């Protein structure tokens, strides 16, 4: 890398880190206003989604159904505040809609709904279906000769659903090299640590056994995220790709990090204030 390239990368990373911070602020804010939702799950994926929506993905917010666009499926649908924040900040819909999360007649349902929210490519919320959905989208891309990428973000707990492995086998059979599964490995699911609820062993090894190409990245290091995601787009291969992302549930709000109860609980007023102070870097 030349100095110029390095400087450019630094700028790009700083810009994306700024977006990720803004996404986190919106996540906490909307869940606080809804008094319902899953902050830990959303925060865990904030850096990855910021990189995808503000840099990596080929999308056009003014044309959410553009046929050539890259597809994104939030298989862990309960984490949707992170997706809603990215979409709003990219102008798919007005920012003030975020205040209506989970409320009556909102475009922002408790779990993502394709026909209600501009920019949501597919309805999710029942875990374990996203990879199959991405598989179908990627197969269609092959069939129509389009070269868009399909990204599927999957929770580590979610991998308990056996259907993931049915999808993994099929994606490999059809050499879906534009299907990219990103696993949000935060080591927590709803009832506790994955090791206690259902040990995952090596997620990377499991996907390798299904003949996927597997990369590992730090899901909170923006440089690592961007370089990994970029590498995946550029390299030639004939298999689907799994990115095993090492993450922290609740990342960015210290009192939420790695704590089970923040899976699906809204902050109270005091918690909200201290989370905001921390995210805005004012303490």
């Amino acid at each position, binding site marked *: 890398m030349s100095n110029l390239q390095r400087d450019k990368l630094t700028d790009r990373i700083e810009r994306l880190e700024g977006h990720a911070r803004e996404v986190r602020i919106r996540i906490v804010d909307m869940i606080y206003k809804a008094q319902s939702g899953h902050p830990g799950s959303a925060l865990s994926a904030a850096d990855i989604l910021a990189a995808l929506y503000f840099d990596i993905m080929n999308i056009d917010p003014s044309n959410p159904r553009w046929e050539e666009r890259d597809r994104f499926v939030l298989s862990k649908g309960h984490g949707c505040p992170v997706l809603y924040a990215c979409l709003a900040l990219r102008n798919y819909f007005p920012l003030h809609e975020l205040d209506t999360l*989970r409320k009556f007649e909102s475009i922002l349902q408790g*779990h993502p709904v394709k026909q209600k929210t501009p920019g949501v490519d597919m309805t*999710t919320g029942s875990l374990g279906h996203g990879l199959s959905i991405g598989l179908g989208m990627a197969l269609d891309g092959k069939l129509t000769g389009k070269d868009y990428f399909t990204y599927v973000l999957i929770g580590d707990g979610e991998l308990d659903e056996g259907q993931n492995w049915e999808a993994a086998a099929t994606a490999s059979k059809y050499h879906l090299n534009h299907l990219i599964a990103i696993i949000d490995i935060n080591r927590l699911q709803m009832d506790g640590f994955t090791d206690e609820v259902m040990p995952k062993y090596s997620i990377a090894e499991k996907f390798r056994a299904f003949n996927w190409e597997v990369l590992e990245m730090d899901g909170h290091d923006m440089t690592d995220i961007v370089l990994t995601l970029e590498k995946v787009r550029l390299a030639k291969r004939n298999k689907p790709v799994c990115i095993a992302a090492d993450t922290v549930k609740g990342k960015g709000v210290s009192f939420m990090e790695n704590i089970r109860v923040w899976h699906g609980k809204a902050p109270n007023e005091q918690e909200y204030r201290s989370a905001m102070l921390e995210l805005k870097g004012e303490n």
Partner: protein
Amino acid sequence: MKLRQAVIPTRQAFSERMVEYGSINTDFAVFEADIGYSTYTYLFGQKFPERYFNMGIAESNMVSAAAGMAAEGRTVVVSSYGVFLSMRAAEAVRTYVCYPDLNVKFLSSHGGVTAAIDGVTHQATEDIAIMSTFPNMKVLCPADSPSAMKLLDLALETPGPVFVRLMRDPLFDVYSEEYEFRIGGSHILVEGDDVTIIAYGDMVMQALNAAEELGNGGISAEVIDMYSQKPIDKETLLKSVKKTGAVLVVENHQKKNGLGYAVPHYLAKIDECVPFAHLGLDDVFAESGDYYQVIDKYGISSRHITEEVQTLIKRKKG
């Protein structure tokens, strides 16, 4: 019938009773699918760790595994949300639990749109239709915490598969200790002469409110809590309908194949053809939002019952 503000949701009451019952019946096991802090089965896990199995987020596997354990002679309580039990695991429930008629009991939370805020993916609005279609399955829907606790005992003491539909949020309590519950039973909560209102689960509260309002307008409504969805209490139903000559079923469920299909089917078969009305989800998915706003938009709140009864009464002969 006095309504009391509920302190805990029925899912919690059911699980708390399950912990007590764990000392009475020391054999049964509990399977959970990673929502134990939501269904409150974690309480059972704390008291009886050796009989509590967290099967991960894998509902179909969990139900088939429960079938395996039940085939060995041990009763298993399987816990999850209604959407996942009735759909994700449906074939395991039908072919491996109901067909061999095994002792598997389903603790099924988030029945109807009581999980309003989570949205459609978490609202079990077809569960009664699916579960009551399986031969050998019995289906129970407690309206409040006291009845949820009684129905835990009943589910465990009844041979074969039993599905119990529970709710996400605390709404109201209506029963006191003295009430008894049985498979195929129901309770007349308010006696009346002009119309029979049949409800279950959270709709009992709406029916009671409607009955009060109707009473103020001079219409005497009988309210039946049909907590046993399958089998239904034909005797009480028939007696009531013979007296009132009109019947309305209200349910937090799709109209299609719900209780509102079972009731007139039975009455028509015995030529007891009275004016009939049915409130429920009318072939639509609901949405996220405040529970009371959602039930009102989808036509199952007390004001809809009141209005519907007023038209129904006019259809009565004589």
